[in-house]
């Protein structure tokens, strides 16, 4: 894992290769040539084609009757001016709602958020503020629990927490959709049994205030994999370090921050990168749960959803390709920034050695 995370571009001087090494390299290239050919034909060339599309006006359904036009940087100009992407969200919150109890009107705590439709990039960023901490720290928390020597039946709990991960994602989204249905879902029914008035019931995926927590809850079933990776990281921490910390009189909290955290920081970093990339590609849940409409109040019109619709619904290949390349650049920049920060907080034992 550590090796995978440590990207190093070594300069290989071909002149220094011996005859044997050259022969081996040729053989190696010959062996991977099927993959190389596949990569060129099915990945690299299509990527190149989409890059060319960004300079054209091409709507595929118009076919041969409307020839493709060269528009230069027109699509990029449209992209930077597209309010569907960049519009800054305006939010108004009413924290209380009136409710009649025994003929008397009372104000109860029931936040209602009104949002002016935000741009797709903002939607993605706002959701990230909810989803990333949960996506990183919840698997870590579960892994810490499963790694505890006081826990009985570790294997059982490990399987239990991992089990939802094997359920097809769309199926689990439908399932959660039923449970969180504001009208008939059992969670709201249960809240009503507890005496929560109807006006204060969460409207889950139908409410701007609740929709992101709803999506995060639905995503919790997918954290089994991250949890296992964290657990593997925890189990790789040398026990001598804990013994040394104990001898030094460190408590549980200090041990975690001074020993555990640094030692598993590469794993956390790895999960962070995956979560960030996943965040920018987030799309299936809003498509299934809110039918890809952006409801409520445009809060679920994620960038990738907009991209998908531009490509496959509106069949605007050129603008879709431009959006895809912009997404690629954004993910690249964010990833580079994260790698830059990694020097400050990610600890590689082999490096310090």
């Amino acid at each position, binding site marked *: 894992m550590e090796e995978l995370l440590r990207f190093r571009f070594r300069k290989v001087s*071909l*002149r220094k*290769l011996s005859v044997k090494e*050259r022969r081996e390299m*040729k053989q190696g*290239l010959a062996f991977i*040539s099927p993959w*190389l*050919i596949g990569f*060129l*034909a099915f990945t690299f*060339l299509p990527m190149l084609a989409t890059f060319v599309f960004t300079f054209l006006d091409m709507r*595929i*359904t*118009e*076919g*041969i*009757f*409307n020839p493709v036009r060269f528009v230069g940087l027109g699509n990029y100009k449209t992209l930077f001016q597209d309010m569907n992407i960049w519009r800054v969200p305006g939010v108004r919150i009413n924290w209380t709602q009136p409710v009649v109890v025994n003929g008397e009107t009372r104000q109860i705590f029931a936040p*209602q958020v*009104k949002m002016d439709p935000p741009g797709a990039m903002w939607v993605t960023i706002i959701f990230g503020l909810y989803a990333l901490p949960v996506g990183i720290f919840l698997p870590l928390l579960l892994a810490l629990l499963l790694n505890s020597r006081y826990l009985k039946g570790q294997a059982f709990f490990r399987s239990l927490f991992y089990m939802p991960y094997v359920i097809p994602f769309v199926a689990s989204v439908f399932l959660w*959709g*039923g449970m969180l*249905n*504001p*009208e*008939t*879902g059992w969670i709201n029914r249960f809240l009503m049994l507890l005496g929560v008035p*109807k006006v204060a019931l969460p*409207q889950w995926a*139908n409410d701007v205030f609740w929709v992101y927590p709803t999506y995060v809850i639905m995503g919790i079933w997918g954290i089994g994999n991250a949890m296992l990776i964290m657990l593997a990281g925890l189990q790789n921490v040398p026990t001598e370090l804990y013994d040394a910390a104990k001898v030094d009189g460190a408590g549980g909290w200090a041990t975690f921050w001074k020993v555990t955290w640094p030692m598993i920081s590469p794993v956390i970093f790895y999960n962070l990168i995956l979560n960030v990339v996943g965040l920018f590609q987030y799309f299936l849940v809003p498509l299934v749960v*809110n*039918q890809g*409409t*952006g*409801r*409520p*109040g445009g809060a679920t019109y994620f960038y990738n959803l907009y991209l998908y*619709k531009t490509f*496959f*619904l*509106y*069949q605007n290949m050129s603008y879709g390709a431009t959006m895809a390349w912009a997404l690629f650049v954004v993910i690249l920049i964010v990833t580079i920034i994260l790698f830059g920060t990694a020097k400050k907080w990610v600890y590689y034992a082999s490096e310090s050695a």
Partner: protein
Amino acid sequence: MKKTLFVLAGVLVVASMLLAACQPKPTPTPTAAPATEAPTQAPTEAPTQPAAGKVQIRWFVGLGTGTNPDQVAVQEEVVKDFNASQDKIELVLEVVPYDSARDTLSTEIASGNGPDIVGPVGWGGTNFFYGQWLDLAPLIQETGYDVSQFDPGLVKAQVTTEGQLGLPFAVFPAAVYYVPKMFDEAGLNYPPAKYGDKYVMPDGTEKPWDWNTVAEIARLLTLDANGKNATEAGFDRNSIVQVGYVPQWQHAMHMAGFWGAGAADFFDADHNAIIPEPAKQAWTWYFNGIWGDQPFIANGALAGSPEFGAGNVFNAGKAAMAVTHFWYTCCLADFKNAGNEFQLGVLPANPNDGKVHGRVDADTFRIWKGTQHPKEAFEVLTYLVGPAVKKLAPTYGALPARAEDQQPFLDAKSADYPFVKSWQPLLDGLAYPDVPSAEGWMPNLNEAWNRIGAFGDLMANDGTIDLAQEIEKLRQDLDVIFKK
């Protein structure tokens, strides 16, 4: 070594290009290779070369119904019959799964390798490929084809700004589906079964059968868990167990259509967006039906819940009335298996103009404008909408457009739903096609439909919106979309 590497890289690039070149090369003639994407369901194998001396006509299926294995078998039989009937044309079937049909056809068209005939296809699929279809009018005139065999209204319904794009083949008129048992329990009379008849209220007064009357009785048919209807004191809107009405699988554009607004009414000659008054009326009626003081339509969450059939509310036995089309008979298995029965009433009128604005969904066949053999393609098309109807319509579950072909279909439906006393209200709905069609073309159609669909979704799910403000916002957005 560097040189060797360059050579190796060069070889790889050439090899990859060769690999790419190995794909079927598109040519503008219909004698070229078949679709680039192989069908997954009961694929039909199209020969790459036509039989000697014959013109090959490719028939593309996938934009609508026709991809189920049993349907493919019938279509193959039709192809066989046609090919056996004459010696000039060789008809080739090309079936592509529905999910990938639009992409496949887009690719074929973009590469100049479009099929000659496409169908069955409704207006949605037709308009997705706006500008690609051949105007049949010159061919009809040239060949003297007799269109009088069809209802003139249905022929006219196939005319768009691009010309006569098709001939009537299968039609799906609309009607009110209702559950007599629910009406009996509420002490209400049934909806009229004949256009022009009035509705008789329980006290004997007669009212015009319009959307206001529908709302009035729908409120009485909407029940909460305590059995109270929506007009009664103490009615709990949070525990609705039965609604009076559901616009079963109707897009906001369809709702507007039933009040008299077609797609062509949504923009002017300069592509400025307009929200026609009937559309505003329809949407206001719908919104108030969900969120008004006396609700009679399920909101989005309730309609989408498993208890209410996850959107198929009438099938779940949770709605007393639904306005929908003949094709909806496809999807009533749960309803029937639960021992429920439905009957049919006529469509209500717009209370503002007193007129019935029906909707007739229609599937037919189109000829691609880029075909090299328009005459031969037209000959095949007339065969499909003519002699082949008897085989094709039953397998598509479609009501044939020609009256003389309809009885076997109705017999089959009666066998499926023996409790239906008369299909006549549906058949009478054929006299009320939506001209201009609610599914007609509008600029940047797919994006516009998506935006209007999102508006419909908003109405169903958010009772706190200012509807007038949202309609204005919709107009502004459509204005931008239409002018893109």
